[in-house]
């Protein structure tokens, strides 16, 4: 209502006709399903890891073999020597059930998002960088602006900037495929059908170690993403992703 007026202010990158549609319903729904699944995968992944907080490289690894590194945390199983005199509560059962269920939901949701973004133009319009921005000069300027925490431009409410686009593309087309690949490479049944999944990674324990690091990269992305939402204006950005509407002026300006 009063937002609609604000939205059509000059300088806004979006035409007035689309003033109430910042994010399509599909983008919003897939965004929040992914958020929910990521949280479930993160918590359950941590629960699974603490039953053996040691990492190896190659095909095999166990308490009799030297680890690549250990997490300095107590374990939930007594088999693992961690230097702590106690074991954590074992939560592996439901954690594994939920981990794989959330993985299915996020993979199917991700597929829907990626496939539809090719057809709706979401990929071309919102994610791929503008041709004019594909230069080192523009990129370094964007990085410099970001490092100075320069306030987002008015257009920022309507469109992703260069660094956002690159970050989102990296998450969607590099980190997500990698986390799925390294996850599947740990499945003895799946790799029996497609052995290259694990052989290309250098072994099952290598896949587990890589899965851990890719998950950390995704966690880092989520943390930065949330910080950026706060810096850009928590209420307006949340409203855009929940209701699809944008348009309130930057709260902090």
């Amino acid at each position: 209502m009063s937002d609609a007026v604000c939205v059509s202010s000059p300088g806004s990158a979006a035409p007035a006709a689309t003033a109430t549609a910042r994010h399509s319903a599909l983008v919003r729904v897939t965004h929040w399903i992914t958020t929910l699944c990521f949280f479930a995968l993160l918590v359950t992944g941590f629960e699974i890891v603490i039953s053996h907080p040691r990492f190896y490289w190659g095909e095999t690894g166990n308490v009799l073999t030297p680890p690549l590194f250990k997490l300095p945390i107590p374990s939930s199983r007594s088999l693992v020597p961690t230097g702590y005199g106690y074991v954590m509560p074992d939560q592996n059962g439901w954690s594994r059930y939920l981990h794989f269920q959330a993985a299915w939901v996020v993979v199917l949701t991700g597929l829907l998002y990626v496939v539809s973004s090719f057809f709706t133009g979401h990929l071309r319009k919102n994610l791929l960088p503008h041709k004019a921005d594909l230069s080192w000069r523009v990129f370094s300027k964007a990085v410099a602006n970001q490092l100075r925490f320069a306030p987002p431009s008015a257009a920022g409410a309507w469109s992703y900037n260069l660094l956002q686009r690159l970050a989102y593309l990296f998450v969607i087309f590099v980190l997500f495929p990698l986390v799925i690949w390294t996850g599947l490479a740990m499945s003895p049944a799946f790799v029996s059908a497609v052995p290259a999944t694990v052989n290309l990674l250098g072994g099952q324990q290598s896949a587990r170690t890589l899965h851990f690091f890719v998950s950390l990269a995704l966690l880092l992305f989520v943390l930065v993403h949330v910080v950026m939402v706060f810096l850009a204006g928590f209420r307006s950005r949340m409203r855009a992703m929940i209701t699809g509407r944008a348009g309130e002026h930057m709260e902090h300006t």
Partner: protein
Amino acid sequence: MRESSSRDLSRRKLITTGLAAAAGAAGLGVAARMAQKYGLVPPDHGGIYGLGETLTYASQRLLTTHSLAREFSRSQISKPPLANEMPPLNDEFKRLQAGGFADWRLSVNGMVARPASFSLDQVKSYPSRSQITMLQCEEGWSYIAEWIGVPLAHVLDVVGVLPQARYVVYFSIDPGWWESIDMADALHPQTFLAYGMNGGELPVGNGGPLRLRLPRQLGYKSVKFITHMTVADSLKGFGKGLGSASPEAGYAWYAGI
């Protein structure tokens, strides 16, 4: 005119949406019926994690029916093979162990033509096979060993499995540990009744004298100290009907992940 066409449009939209929804619901119903018929629904499909479990089991069953677990070279065998902790073995086991397992029996009954009870020597008299495969624990650790034994398919052939058989349920001498697998896994050439490891006897710490080896699933399906098997057409009558002890303890029945 205009009004009527817009009314037509909304009616058409309503009908299309309704038809699409009905088709979707019917499709799901048919999919569920087909999945049940072709054995693509795991016994622990009830509850909030049923969706993920069913998708995993169904897709892997379709993808991996005939695929072989990776086998490794002799140089990749873990030295020493980890014998993970186990609960203190019961008096019955200790008695048999004191006798050098000479009295160890494996009984097989259920939907078979010739129920039987085998001694270890009888099991070892069948053509032996070996595989160098990885044992992967759900905790995250793993080791590679050479497993020597008789393919379960051979023993099932000896007792004569009836055509309506769908599962093999197998029991450890440890009363809390029993599992089951479908016929695709039971008849798979790498599913062994293993009695040897790395050229010698199968150590007690690794499940000796007799262990089921199932290299395409996680270690907890490879039950140690096997004494009994039942061939069945349904898992409803076993325990709580969830397929094995694992789901009763909160772990997935199908562990091919």
